[in-house]
């Protein structure tokens, strides 16, 4: 098809075309970069936390009276929870994973803070901890009930056995098996690695070492302890209600303050990221919608002002398809110019975002994706006006000359 007439027509009244191209260029720059940010957030949220998030819930309690007897009371409560029909396992725990609150420590491969250091976010759980989290042991074994201790509140005493994730193992023992090795606390107390957890996320989803987790066989201090319960699949909500009722029936010197699911906690932790992803998705949708309407509006206007010319062309022998092709080609040309400028703008915007806000650099295939999306949007928007143009009757030419 000959594009010369298109070019000469565009040269005569370039304003509309320039506006459409500019709009497409800006839309492309925004779409591509927003899309990139969205996928990053979705990847962050969609990471596998390694736990049975859907079925875990937490029961918060506070000691309140003279009847409270520390470990005895907590074990009494755990026995009640474990006896509930919908419950798979339960333990005390010092912090809630994925919540943003927790404890961390460093251990070393040699005493006196020597050797390789491993940073780990630790959870104090009893022998049912592994089962309650629903994490998979890749190697070794769980600790048994006899290893579980309850140190005094401020004690720096550390457990003799620990479980670590593969991530910690990789940091401390790169290229060699970690199972069975002895690691040392900062005060040189030894602990044996009795098991390796395949994968598990800790308390801080934003931490670059979120997978560096350790489980300690310790009954958590009541200042921070809560009960963590894993329900049978699909029975979480009933189990939560039953747990609250059952514990409230017994007055053993503690008050139950809240029962919450891990799903709720995690959703709240990721709320900002989800909000960002949704907001940007809405912006993209609106952007493409408004661009399409704008292109449609201008194209329709162009057709209506050129009705006479179209009629003349038809009268001197152009077929309907020729007219259709003419308008689509014109639209394609303008869109392509917009897309090319848009690619440059998108890269500039991406560069600005990555240098100013330390976001990762824009990946190029997003550019391709965005360009294709805009081509399609633009084509669809121009289709109806172009079809209308092709339906203009040749008789128009004779009528108004």
């Amino acid at each position, binding site marked *: 098809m000959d594009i010369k007439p298109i070019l000469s027509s565009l040269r005569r009244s370039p304003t509309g075309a320039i506006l*459409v191209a500019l709009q497409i260029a800006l839309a492309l720059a925004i779409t591509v970069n927003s899309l990139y*940010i969205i996928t990053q957030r979705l990847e962050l949220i969609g990471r596998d936390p390694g736990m049975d998030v859907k079925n875990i819930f937490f029961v918060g309690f506070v000691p309140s009276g003279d009847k409270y007897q520390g470990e005895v009371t907590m074990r009494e409560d755990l026995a009640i929870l474990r006896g509930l029909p919908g419950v798979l396992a339960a333990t005390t725990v010092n912090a809630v994973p994925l919540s943003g609150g927790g404890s961390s420590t460093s251990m070393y491969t040699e005493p006196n803070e020597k050797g390789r250091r491993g940073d780990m976010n630790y959870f104090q759980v009893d022998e049912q901890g592994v089962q309650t989290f629903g994490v998979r042991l890749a190697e070794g074994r769980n600790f048994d009930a006899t290893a579980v201790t309850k140190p005094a509140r401020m004690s720096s005493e550390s457990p003799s056995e620990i479980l670590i994730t593969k991530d910690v193992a990789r940091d401390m023992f790169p290229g060699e098996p970690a199972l069975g090795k002895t690691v040392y606390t900062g005060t040189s107390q030894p602990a044996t690695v009795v098991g390796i957890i395949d994968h598990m996320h800790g308390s801080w989803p934003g931490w670059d070492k979120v997978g560096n987790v350790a489980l300690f066989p310790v009954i958590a201090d009541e200042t921070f302890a809560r009960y963590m319960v894993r329900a049978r699949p699909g029975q979480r909500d009933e189990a939560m209600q039953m747990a609250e009722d059952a514990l409230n029936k017994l007055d053993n010197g503690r008050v139950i303050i809240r029962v919450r699911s891990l799903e709720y906690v995690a959703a709240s932790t990721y709320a900002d990221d989800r909000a960002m992803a949704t907001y940007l998705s809405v912006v993209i949708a609106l952007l493409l919608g408004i661009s399409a309407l704008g292109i449609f509006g201008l194209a329709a206007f162009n057709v209506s002002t050129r009705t006479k010319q179209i009629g003349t062309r038809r009268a001197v022998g152009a077929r309907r398809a020729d007219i259709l092709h003419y308008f689509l080609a014109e639209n394609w040309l303008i869109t392509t110019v917009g897309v090319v400028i848009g690619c440059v703008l998108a890269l500039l*915007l991406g560069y600005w975002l990555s240098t100013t806000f330390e976001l990762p650099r824009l990946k190029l295939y997003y550019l391709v994706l965005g360009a294709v999306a805009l081509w399609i949007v633009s084509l669809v928007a121009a289709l109806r006006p172009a079809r209308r143009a092709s339906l203009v009757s040749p008789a128009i030419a004779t009528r108004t000359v």
Partner: protein
Amino acid sequence: MFTYDLRLALDSLRRHPGLSALMVLAIALGIAVCTVTFTIYHAMSTNPIPHKSSQLYAVTLDTWSADRPYDDDKPENTPQLLTYRDATFLHEAKAAPRSVIMYKSGALLLPERSGVKPFNANLRVTSHDFFSMFDVPFQYGQGWDATADSEPQPVVVLSDETNQKVFAGENSVGRTLKLGKVEYRVAGVLQPWAPSPKFFDLNNGAFEDPEDVYVPYGWGRSLELPVYGNTNCWKAESGDTYQDFLNSECVWLQYWAELPTTADRDRFQAFVDNYARSQKAAGRMPRPLNNRLYDVGQWLDRNEVVQRDNRVLIGIALLFLGVCLVNVVGLLLAKFLNAAPLTGLRRALGASRRDIVRQHMMEVLVIGLAGGVLGLLLAIGGLAGIRAIYGSDFNRGAYQRLTEIDPVVVVVTLALALLAGAIAGLYPAWRIGRTAPAIYLKTQ
């Protein structure tokens, strides 16, 4: 003239309802996206205590490890929190006219009113100057004095919300309430008060709710109240008791000083530096001398209270508005040129070019204003949606405060809409103003 232009504008808009609606919608969407983003940004970057923000200083000392800085990415940064030893020394030395030492804690609150369940109350364990330093407004009663801090007396100040919950909002001064095992007397009740950002303690989120109950600082030590904020340690501490924890190098306390003049500030900085030197001489504080006083504005910057996301969104929102404007320019041009024969007729009947431009600008401003109002409504809906979808028990207060539309934003929004309309309309109106009447009259 004004009403005539307005009538012409409305007539013209009515003639092409679809096109007019499309333009109003384009402006409305651009404005809505900008308003939502600006509202959140505005809330994040608000100065929570404007009249005093340059007199209140967060005091920090670099007590971190010789081997690594507190913040690997910004080695010049000091820890935000202080050790018990340092904070206690600075507080007791009274080198600042007023200062406050404090931390966040919690305890079980057992209300006596029937029907109110016990709940875990967040506590601010703080010295008495907290209320006067941070201009905390009282509804009933008052705070406590210095003697109540050191030999802690069983008095508390309640937030309005707590007073509503526990005493049904009555004047509860003099009444008692049990927190954990201790019975306290209510000394004062605050007015509803939630500085945003919560500048004096950014540990648990910059926009979280303030605490439920305020208790004299000395209770922290005598009851060994737990730390609900962060406790950060850089070396292995081998303690077994609470006293060992207090003696440790772990940082967990906040310390603020009120220094009205720059002379006060310089004097206090020198005092802190001297203290740090003496500690270095005694073998502590292995890092180079680095003690920083941050006023409220600097403190909010240092803690990156305005989130990165929000700055990105501002950029994207403005670009989005740009797209909407380009869109409107195109549509206006099409619409005006479409009506050119009419304009030609008006010109022929004696309207000047300026009349034509003014008439079209009026049309554009009507579109801008309509777009602005619709955009504002969309933004209010959008912000309510964000609150409803993403608010949870943990962040409800924060999301509430961040998504509240304030008058400043409303005014700015409407001004922006009119400005946007004017910018979009300038070229099309000018262009149509240059129409030569003769061409169109010929074709009539």
